[in-house]
């Protein structure tokens, strides 16, 4: 893994949150290449363009205008071109029911977004390292469920 770059895609409509995440990605040990999109519509345009290489993992804000994180999740799960992309949903607040619902609809990871930068770094590091294990250790991605 030491030489491999993890391709991450981040979809968030809030500029501050985008900065919060991209800075956290830049400061973790694992090297990532990030594609940032500003909302769900842009995300689906990016994914549907076969000229773009598919990300290993997608970080999706739950609340976005035009197309929400859950709507994107449903579209992604119904298209076999996206079978190998892990989906991490995040939001500031979530009930157990929201979280379970996102998993049922096919999300792999649910992140309760912290306010603390160090905490975000720890979470992103854990999510990406774990996703990489699923990617490289022959684990069954359908059973990849993490609530953090």
């Amino acid at each position, binding site marked *: 893994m030491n030489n491999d770059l993890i391709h991450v895609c981040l979809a968030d409509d809030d500029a501050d949150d985008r900065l919060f995440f991209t800075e956290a990605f830049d400061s973790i040990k694992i090297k990532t290449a990030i594609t940032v999109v500003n909302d769900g519509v842009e995300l689906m345009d990016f994914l549907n363009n076969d000229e773009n290489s598919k990300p290993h993992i997608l970080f999706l804000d739950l609340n976005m205008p035009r197309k929400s994180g859950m709507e994107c999740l449903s579209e992604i799960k119904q298209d076999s071109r996206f079978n190998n992309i892990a989906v991490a949903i995040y939001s500031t607040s979530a009930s157990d029911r929201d979280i379970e619902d996102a998993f*049922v609809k096919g999300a792999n990871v649910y992140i309760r977004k912290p306010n603390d930068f160090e905490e975000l770094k720890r979470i992103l590091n854990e999510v990406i390292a774990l996703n990489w294990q699923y990617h490289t250790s022959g684990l069954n991605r359908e059973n990849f469920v993490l609530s953090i």
Partner: protein
Amino acid sequence: MKVYVKFDINALCRKILQEQLDASGINYRIIAFGEIEILDKLSAEKQRKLEEHLGEYGIQIVENQKNILVQKIKDAIVEMVNQEENQPSLKSSVYLAEKLNHSYNYISNLFSEVTYSSIESFIILQKIERAKQLILMNELTFTEISYKLNYCNVAHFSTQFKNTTGITPSAFQRIIKKRRELQVQEQMQNN
């Protein structure tokens, strides 16, 4: 109708390797899980073709020495966790050091350096993944699963499951069941 299948990873990989190597006309000997000796010289073209065919099954040829040892560590852990009966009663650190013929300190540091996670957390991950398979087979109770995977009791198993995945074993079972129902519904709508 729905059927659930279970499989022997070791037998499955061995069979695929044999078929692919035979089809490529290569002389070989399977030494151990994940280790093959190629008995004649492999041309670059043949190797490329072999890598391509194996790639379709998610099998990769591992290149550098560190990665080879890390792969051996992973294989040993997978084998250890997936043993049907008689999970090794030795401590896993002793088991791995003996099996791989290196000090545990050495393999542990190397593993962390290459994978960014510790051997301990990889073992836990593999055990929890095995637990998930067993849960989805619906044949064993959580108590039976916890004994099968060497947990001292079901509470310890549930706690480690929750710490690793963020959800309880029963929530996991419920989520996957609902997810499968949803997939069936969507397929019916699309047809």
